[in-house]
């Protein structure tokens, strides 16, 4: 018995022993490559700022999102820096959960931030989070295959052209899919892509009075097109492929075309990580009825929760990690294709970057042209291109995503799936008080 008591006692003593040290800030971030580089290079920051110690919590995206949202909404106060996106920043800013970033130091050059990205992270014109990297969507294709089949890529491809090319290039016997697209259900996975497709086919999530329009003719056409395109000319297992899976497929030469995030460009253009780096072509995201909302806008950004007790130290860190100086540091240390893209005009003006990254102009244009405030042919009441900036959207988007994945696997017809989600979204919106 003595022993049995002694062990927990020793355990508790170990648990409570506190130790004093420099100011520690806890940073919650996603396990994406750019953040991993940030974590590696943060030694430099700690050298420059010996009074600040960094404590990292790196989690996969979905886990991280749930974790930080819990924390901020309940004022748990466990993090000093949170990695959030353009979906969260304005909403959380509105609720006063974030430290407004209006008095940034002169040398941060806040005007250098690309405008749509900056706007996307602001509430009432005040920045709520500093962009770490930003992305839009575009098309990647294999120039060798296009040449072989005598296809020429126009300046602005259309979806019906893409369909024809996919048909020509699709070659399952040789492990080659005509096109790879997101199929894995989730509001940030298949629905990010599907929303842009619906936008360009002329549809929208909600009308101006928040009535869902998911079984409209535009949705019908867009989803039927998506199901046919990806079902017929997609890779096996398309309904469980998200961004990562598709990137792995494309970079190992298993897709002829791929429409996805611009932030993948650096990696699939890097010969160490990609076997198709030499035959890589870029084009804007395809359009159908309208160019509006045909490509998305997303940014991962660093924010300081209002509950943080080390706001100054946290601010010192986030201004460092999103600075021009940091971009240069990554360029020198990791190579210029690895710099966090999409945030600063100066990155794109940098000759070294332009030289190393032939896709730079496509990316910059796509980001500049994305407009979260006006993303659909007919007007809508929400903020966001590939998402709807309301708290209910995570659940709504994921449920719709599941039904669309079911339509993709042939579990149910497109019409059935859309009618079902229309009903369930109506219910959710009613419950949330948007509809009477």
């Amino acid at each position: 018995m003595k022993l049995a008591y002694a062990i927990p006692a020793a355990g508790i003593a170990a648990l409570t022993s506190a130790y004093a040290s420099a100011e520690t800030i806890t940073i919650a971030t996603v396990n994406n490559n750019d953040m991993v580089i940030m974590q590696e290079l943060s030694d430099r920051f700690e050298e420059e700022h010996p009074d600040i110690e960094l404590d990292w919590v790196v989690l996969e995206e979905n886990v991280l999102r749930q974790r930080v949202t819990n924390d901020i909404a309940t004022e748990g106060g466990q993090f000093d820096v949170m990695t959030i996106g353009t979906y969260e920043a304005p909403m959380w800013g509105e609720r006063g959960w974030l430290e407004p970033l209006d008095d940034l130091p002169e040398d941060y050059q806040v005007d250098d931030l690309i405008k749509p990205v900056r706007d996307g992270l602001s509430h009432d014109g005040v920045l709520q989070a500093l962009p770490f990297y930003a992305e839009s969507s575009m098309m990647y294709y294999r120039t060798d295959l296009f040449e072989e089949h005598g296809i020429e890529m126009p300046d602005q491809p259309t979806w019906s052209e893409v369909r024809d090319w996919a048909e020509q290039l699709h070659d399952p016997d040789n492990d080659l899919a005509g096109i790879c697209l997101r199929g894995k259900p989730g509001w940030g996975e298949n629905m990010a892509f599907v929303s842009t497709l619906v936008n360009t086919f002329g549809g929208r999530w909600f009308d101006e009075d928040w009535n869902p329009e998911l079984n409209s003719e535009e949705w019908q056409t867009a989803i039927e097109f998506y199901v046919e395109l990806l079902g017929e000319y997609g890779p096996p297992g398309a309904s469980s492929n998200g961004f990562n899976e598709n990137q792995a497929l494309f970079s190992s030469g298993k897709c002829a075309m791929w429409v996805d995030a611009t932030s993948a460009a650096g990696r699939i253009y890097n010969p160490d990580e990609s076997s198709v780096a030499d035959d890589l072509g870029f084009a804007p995201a395809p359009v159908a009825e309208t160019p509006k909302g045909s490509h998305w806008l997303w940014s991962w950004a660093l924010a300081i929760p209002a509950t943080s007790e080390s706001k100054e130290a946290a601010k010192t860190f986030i201004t460092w990690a999103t600075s021009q100086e940091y971009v240069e540091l990554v360029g020198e240390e990791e190579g210029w294709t690895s710099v966090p893209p999409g945030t600063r005009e100066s990155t794109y003006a940098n000759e070294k970057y332009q030289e190393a990254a032939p896709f730079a102009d496509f990316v910059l244009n796509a980001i500049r042209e994305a407009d979260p405030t006006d993303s659909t042919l007919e007007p809508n009441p929400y903020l966001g291109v590939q998402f709807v900036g309301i708290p209910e959207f995570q659940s709504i988007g994921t449920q719709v995503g599941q039904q669309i994945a079911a339509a993709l696997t042939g579990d149910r017809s497109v019409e059935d799936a859309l009618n079902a989600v229309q009903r369930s979204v109506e219910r959710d919106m009613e419950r949330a008080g948007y509809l009477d």
Partner: protein
Amino acid sequence: MPKRASGRTVGGLRSLSLQAPAVTLLLLWMLIPLGMTLWFSFQHYNLLMPGEPSFVGLENYEYLFTDPSLWRAMGNTLLMVGWILVISVGGGTLLAVLFQQEFKGRGIARVLAISPFFVMPTVSALIWKNLMMHPDNGVLAWLTESVGLPAIDWFSWVPMTSVVIIVSWQWLPFALLILLTAIQSLDEDQVEAARMDGAGPVDIFRFITLPHLKRAISVVIMIEMIFLLTLFAEIYVTTSGGPGLATTNLAFLIYIQALLDFDVGMASAGGVVAIILANIVAIFLVRLVARNLEE
């Protein structure tokens, strides 16, 4: 008789005082969170919405019960629990008999076969998803392709089966471990006598081994059921409940309907419904199991 009666009262008091720590703690554990859950379930309380929670009566329950996905999710829950129990207990029993036989390296083979039970559910789901069942570079795809068949796209063609396979892989070793132990106490003489009387291996299994294992099987069912009713990590990692609602069980439905948009009121109502369902299942199954345990 009087002696017994008095002993009982004294025993009852002692019994109560000894049980007190565990019972009180579990009561607190039950009452505080469950009480809070019950309270929240009558509130309109969304973490992401400004303003204080407000009392809405049964609204959360109304939404939950009119949700067409609820019945499907309940069905899925029972289907999953049922299949996994059948596979792990059935397979575990057969394997227990097999691994009871003497053969070279039996100790090592047993250890290998029970290993999956020690693997974290998240890790096992990740291994199966990325290394085994991946339609492109998974081992299973490579196997089917090497015999000239197309790769099976597990999570979109047979999502339920895939989840059942993964979870059974984790729990079959547990059943094996317990049943193997139980089978070792089987009376050899009885088996030998039966064999003398001309009983074949199937008869021996059916009339001697199986009745002997009855109690152990009850234990396995009981423990597994507790975990399977709240199955979450494996679904979260592999299918995210899809495609459609194909693999959405009650725990996952609560997650997607409520926790995902931080609707605490709905999540709580879902939790209350889940525990009621669990208790209904428990009353049937546990009673059955408990009867076996008494023998």
